[in-house]
């Protein structure tokens, strides 16, 4: 790694006395009036996969950032390999082998894959960057997690899911003794998730300790040996996973019985005329796509990472430039061509982008400002904004999406990941859009909030909106969609009905095992 640091080899020796690789004792973390983490102790031993679950805002990310020395705890101490860590000493934590993959991507978009993987520990020779070593280490790290990607590709050209893998490779390249993953699968499709879980299992077998955060309960049961449940910043459970069932665990997370009739499929939805339509759409990574969404219909776009779903959607709306084809919107019987993105918004389309932090939110503005932005014309009289109406409007939407804490005058950047996602949804919901396009709408939100967002999406469709959903979460896609279009290589390779389709059918098409030419 860095030229003089010996680095800590992946420990395969200390098997008799399992000293915790990392341990937090009585951790308390307060942000102003918010008690994010309240007296929590947690530890992981080599070879253990430790799950961490809890609702949005429970304090999971905060606790992990304290363990990795990114945040200074208000109270309590962190021990790494039995040695106390100087509070908030990120470098020391890194050098001692704690590697954190943040919930939000933290790569430098303009730099290449190799540069990003070695960022912060770029190998040098006499001050000059040693490109060959850099590439070797980067390649080894990517191989370790079984991913192939061009080392010289700038990050900005990769899909969000591929960025996630690069992020993990970066953590691996530091040769950690404990790997902390904060919702790594939120952007991954089932195939990639399986791949990642298998990889993690293999790494754990080499005595790596893993701390794993996810809202997807089945993953926790598939992967973890032990689990810690947080609720409102407090520790609820720290136990062997075998003592729980998915249902009992959710109950502990939520603190009450959660009424989730998981199967919420709409019964015989009524579809009207085509409202959103693309013909011969072409753009980088989009090859000649035709797509129709009818009034009252929920169309899902499925496919593997990098298949081009986000690109199709963005080209359709004009958010990214098209090289060919056209999109039209039909409202009140009037058909309009969508040129640039703004004309799409003016035509009444709402777009919830995939990347909330870069594309969806202004993190330094308050919740109420963020919600007001796309609705500003209806919230002002002439040129003048109506502050009181904005506050009322924002408050009722925050309530609709169950924002926690429900403080609309707080900056969005101070909310937990899942709660930020709720703000993105709330922004556009307020327009009661006639056409709504959602890219990964429930990325990072907890079980309860997810069901709620699904309900809101269905409600929009029931009211006659045309809904287009991109989701890597296959169960979500199957549950929501009336029609599923499967995308591969920027092309629609098959159209499946929502009813009666199972995951296997979508995956087969997505992976190209079975050619169905529908486009």
């Amino acid at each position, binding site marked *: 790694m860095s030229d003089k640091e010996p680095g800590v080899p992946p420990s395969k020796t200390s098997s008799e006395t399992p000293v915790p690789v990392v341990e937090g004792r009585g951790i308390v973390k307060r942000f102003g009036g918010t008690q994010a983490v309240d007296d929590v102790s947690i530890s992981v031993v080599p070879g253990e996969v430790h799950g961490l679950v809890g609702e949005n805002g429970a304090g999971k990310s905060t606790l992990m950032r304290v363990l990795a020395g990114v945040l200074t705890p208000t109270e309590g101490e962190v021990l790494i390999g039995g040695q106390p860590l100087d509070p908030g000493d990120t470098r020391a934590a890194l050098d001692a082998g704690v590697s954190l993959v943040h919930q939000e991507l933290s790569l430098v978009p303009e730099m290449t894959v190799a540069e990003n993987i070695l960022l912060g520990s770029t190998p040098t020779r006499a001050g000059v960057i040693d490109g060959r070593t850099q590439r070797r280490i980067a390649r080894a790290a990517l191989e370790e997690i079984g991913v192939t990607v061009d080392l010289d590709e700038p990050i900005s050209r990769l899909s969000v899911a591929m960025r996630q893998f690069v992020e993990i490779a970066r953590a691996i390249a530091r040769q950690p003794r404990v790997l902390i993953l904060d919702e790594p699968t939120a952007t991954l499709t089932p195939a990639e998730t399986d791949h990642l879980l298998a990889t993690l299992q293999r790494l754990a077998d080499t005595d790596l300790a893993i701390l794993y955060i996810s809202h997807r309960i089945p993953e926790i049961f598939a992967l973890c040996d032990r689990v810690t449940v947080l609720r409102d910043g407090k520790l609820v459970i720290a136990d062997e996973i075998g003592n729980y069932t998915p249902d009992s665990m959710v109950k502990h997370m939520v603190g009450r019985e959660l009424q989730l009739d998981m199967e919420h499929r709409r019964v015989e939805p009524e579809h009207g005329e085509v409202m959103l339509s693309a013909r011969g759409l072409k753009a980088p990574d989009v090859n000649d796509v035709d797509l129709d969404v009818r009034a009252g219909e929920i169309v899902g776009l499925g496919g593997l990472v990098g298949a081009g779903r986000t690109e199709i959607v963005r080209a359709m709306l004009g958010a990214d430039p098209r090289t060919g084809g056209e999109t039209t919107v039909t409202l009140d019987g009037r058909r309009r061509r969508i040129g640039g993105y*703004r004309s799409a918004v003016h035509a009444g389309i709402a777009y919830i982008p995939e990347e909330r932090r870069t594309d969806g939110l*202004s993190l330094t503005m308050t919740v109420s400002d963020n919600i007001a*932005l796309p609705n*500003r014309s209806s919230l002002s009289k002439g040129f003048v904004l109506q502050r009181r109406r904005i506050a009322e*409007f924002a408050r009722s939407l925050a309530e609709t999406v169950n924002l926690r*804490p429900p403080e609309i005058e707080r900056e969005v950047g101070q909310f937990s990941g899942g709660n930020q996602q709720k703000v993105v949804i709330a922004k556009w919901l307020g*327009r*009661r859009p006639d056409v709504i396009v959602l890219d990964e709408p429930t990325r990072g939100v907890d079980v309860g909030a997810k069901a709620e967002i699904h309900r809101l999406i269905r409600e929009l469709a029931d009211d006659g909106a045309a809904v287009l959903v991109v989701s890597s979460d296959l169960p979500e896609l199957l549950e929501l969609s009336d029609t599923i279009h499967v995308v591969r290589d920027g092309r629609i390779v098959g159209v499946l009905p929502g009813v009666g389709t199972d995951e296997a059918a979508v995956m087969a098409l997505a992976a190209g095992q079975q050619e169905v030419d529908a486009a």
Partner: protein
Amino acid sequence: MSSQAPAPTTPHPSPARAEDEPEATPFKLSAWLSTQGIVIFTIALVLFAVVFVDGFASLPNLTDVFNRAAPIGIVAAGMTFVVISGNYLDLSVVAQVATAAVVLIAVTNAVGLLPAILLAIAIALVYGLVNGVAVGVFKANAVIVTLSTTFIGLGLLRWLTGGSIYFGDSDGPIRTFGTTRIGPLPLSMVLFVVVTILLSLVFTRTNFGFMVRAYGSNREATRLAGVNTPAVVIGAFTMSALGAMLGGFVLAAFSNTAVSSMSDGYDFRALAAIIVGGTSVFGGRGSVMRTLLGVVFVSVLTNIMVLTGLGFGFQQMAIGLLIVLAVSVDALARKTRSS
């Protein structure tokens, strides 16, 4: 689109726990400095000057401070829009102030006051448009663009005027404007305060001001919210241009003369006032009212240096130091806020 919010429907019990404790943000020095600090510092500085600096609290001196602060303040108030939009600063105010001053006096002498004002407004709009299109449409860097337009504008002005000094009519309207007082206050000072309040209202109350702030906070998210972002940038540079024009008028009226070199250093002094006021150079954070405080602070500080006999070189150095300090506090505050 309908402006109705969907009916609030919450299946979850309303959780209100985080509201139990009122705002009790932990004390972060840099965050405090960059938000509240300027108020205290300005008051402290004025008190210090009143008590310790001979001649500060005299009417002639305060009038002089006001007269010098007014043009800078108006320029800074307009430029605040550019800074909040995340485009750092508008260097071309140097050229714009001088041009407006020369146009006001020279064209009034030759043709009349109204044509002079109309021409100056037209020039300001051209500046706003050129800077705004280059930065907002072509995405060019604001520092480079406005440095270039400064060269173009100042070059043109010097070429046309040959560097000559223009004197206003000794009992014309410009002279009257420059000498009128309202109570003890020079008219220019009143104009400064009125302009600041107006621009502050534009910033806090209007759709346009809101979009400037949103754009400065996150360009892409603002674009994807359907905002015409090039227009926002053009608008911000136009506010800056109109401020610079008014500043030029006030400056010309103050001395009833105009020359192409009269606005030297206005770029950095305006920037100093904006940043010292606590508006972030990262964009998205700040206000016009803060700039007002910043102007008072910088003007009083300059006056103290003048009164205590510290020369121009020292003053220049002090302003430079002040900017470095304020920018560092800003950067530090931004860092601590996020952790």
